[in-house]
């Protein structure tokens, strides 16, 4: 069944977006990305190690921009200025690539988004021609503001980054999705395949995760599990659930019983 996800003019078959942090090595990263079926893969931008040997392996040799849509993030930025600067570096690094994941964090303990700075950075980036996918809290009014200013996807948290607590406020996600015209992608908090399925059954357009896969005992197997969980949740949503009822309703016919 063709049910693609559209982001910034591109079409994706997978609704799972994954991060590349916290893996044992680049080979494990490559295998997990492959097993997940993800087509959009996030990376961070950091200072190059100046003492390195020529030919030292590079992440983008394993997860290549010709095969995947690379989504550079602004993780680690705690103000709008640093986030915008990081996006400009990413654009140069990726040869003019415009799609970025904006996240401006509030503090180290919660990594909760700083909304004032997020909104300011989003506006600057949109004005500068970036396609902005924006990490935010699950406030429907903030989500609407970010959509209205031209962000190509709004990405509310399910729960805190790296917490694995799942979607703690499904009602807020429903409020956001009811109004949204851009894809709503749950970013952060998913811990298990069932968390991912539930989020997709709610009607989220996709899920971005990193720790749930990278910190699993077997990351490559978990990547495969998450792929299936997201497909199951999406198909379940499209299929439409049965009505709930308070009392039993037999699945086998009541007539023709032997007596």
């Amino acid at each position, binding site marked *: 069944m063709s049910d693609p996800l559209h982001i910034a003019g591109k079409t994706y078959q997978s609704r799972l977006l994954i991060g590349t942090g916290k893996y044992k090595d680049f080979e494990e990263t490559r295998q997990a990305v492959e097993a997940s079926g993800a087509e959009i893969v996030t*990376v961070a931008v950091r200072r190059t190690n*100046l003492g390195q040997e020529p030919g030292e392996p590079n*992440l983008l040799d394993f997860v290549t921009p010709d095969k995947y849509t690379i989504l550079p993030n602004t993780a680690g930025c705690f103000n709008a200025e640093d986030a915008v600067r990081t996006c400009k570096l990413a654009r*140069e690094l990726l040869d003019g690539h415009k799609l970025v994941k904006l996240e401006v964090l509030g503090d180290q303990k919660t990594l909760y988004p700083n909304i004032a700075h997020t909104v300011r950075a989003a506006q600057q980036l949109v004005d500068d021609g970036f396609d902005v996918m924006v990490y935010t809290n699950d406030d429907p009014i903030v989500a609407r503001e970010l959509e209205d200013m031209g962000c190509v996807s709004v990405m509310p948290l399910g729960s805190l980054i790296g917490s694995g607590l799942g979607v703690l406020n499904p009602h807020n996600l429903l409020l956001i999705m009811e109004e949204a015209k851009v894809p709503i992608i749950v970013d952060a908090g998913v811990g298990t395949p069932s968390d991912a399925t539930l989020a997709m059954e709610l009607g989220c357009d996709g899920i971005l995760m990193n720790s749930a896969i990278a910190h699993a005992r077997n990351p490559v197997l978990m990547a495969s599990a998450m792929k299936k969980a997201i497909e199951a949740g999406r198909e379940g949503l499209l299929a439409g659930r049965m009505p709930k009822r308070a009392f039993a309703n037999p699945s086998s016919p009541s007539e023709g019983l032997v007596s």
Partner: protein
Amino acid sequence: MTSLTVNGDPMTLEGTTVADLVAQLQLQGRRLAVEVNRDIVPKSEHGQHRLYDGDVVEIVHAIGGG
């Protein structure tokens, strides 16, 4: 000889341009982005962009992240 700060550390450049610095650091051909005094220097300009004493250079690349 030019005295620079590169990724937070002092460094002496033996050549004159961003391309010379990249070569001195043995980073030629790698996928990276260069900023000088907070302005991006596009790859196409690495060969012409002169560096001066006191310039602050940042060289970044992509790493794993979520």
